[in-house]
């Protein structure tokens, strides 16, 4: 009887854990991608207008957002994908510091592409399931 109670309790805990795991990672990745994408758009617009100072400020902000959230994201996304996003963000930041407009634009576009990959990992659709 005691074993049955323990078994049922464990099953309920597992179900609760799974429900949490279904909701939290996708929500966390989605909000992170939205936050970072907003700064990428701002940085890209500034870089295309030749305002590399503003572009640099934006890359610093998006870099700090990623720094704060990267450890948690690594709990539920393959580390190599997260590392790629960090690498692209650092590249955009360094290019803005060096006032290399074309490199900044290229790095920001690459960062946005990596973020798109990241955000699609937790997308619940037929392509991901199959």
């Amino acid at each position, binding site marked *: 009887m005691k074993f049955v109670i323990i078994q049922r309790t464990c099953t309920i805990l597992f179900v609760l854990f799974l429900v949490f795991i*279904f909701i939290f990672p996708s929500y966390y990745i989605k909000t992170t991608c939205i936050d970072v994408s907003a700064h990428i758009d701002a940085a890209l617009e500034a870089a295309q207008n030749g305002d590399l100072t503003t572009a640099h400020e934006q890359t610093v902000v998006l870099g700090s957002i990623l720094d704060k959230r990267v450890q948690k994201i690594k709990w539920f996304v393959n580390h190599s994908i997260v590392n790629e996003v960090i690498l692209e963000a650092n590249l955009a930041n360094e290019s803005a510091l060096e006032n290399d407009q074309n490199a900044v634009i290229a790095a920001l576009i690459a960062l946005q592409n990596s973020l798109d990959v990241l955000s699609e990992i937790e997308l619940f659709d037929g392509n991901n399931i199959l």
Partner: protein
Amino acid sequence: MLVLFIRAVLLYIFILFIIRLTGKRQVSDLQPFDLLITLTIADLAGCAIADVDIPLLYSIVPILALFLVQQAVAKLCLKSPHIRRAFCGSPLIIVRDGVLMEQTMRYANYTVTDLMDKLRSKDIFDLSCVSYAILETNGGLSILQYDQTDSAELSHMLILDGKVCRDAVSSLSLTDADLRAILGGTSISSVLFMQLSPNGELLYQLDRRHGAHQFKSQLRRVSA
């Protein structure tokens, strides 16, 4: 993570289907769904252990998914004989009255060599000693030898988990009315099992909701 969960469940169904198709020879002492769990959990754990780039949750979530599906399948198998048959299959008689059932053996992908291997592992070296050989759902072989019983016949399970075993009952030309007559006022659904021995002795037990009492009686027919 929901994607991972769904993928694990889909693969569970697919692998179970394949294991069932491969036949009982491959199962080796485990029920098909137990074998599936053993194989897949080992592999899932191995992935996360070996590759530090993969988050632990990538292994934990599918393992939990398999655990929950396994629990659900086990519960369903307890509740319904039809579902149990679908997941585990049915025991197959491959030797009946000393005669090899060739068609059944083909169906189970079981060769005479396999049969002889199993017989030797049970210290039986002469096929003529075997009255009945039953290929169990877990791939094991149960054998009844001629010298083990006077009649060398099998017992029949007439009721299992409150449901009439139609094949056995009809093969003995019994009817539900016969079973109800044996049980008196007790309903068939309250019987955990009822077994008919070759000597005509009936042994049956009520389920725990009805006291789990066990009874013995002789078979008597009300039908012609």
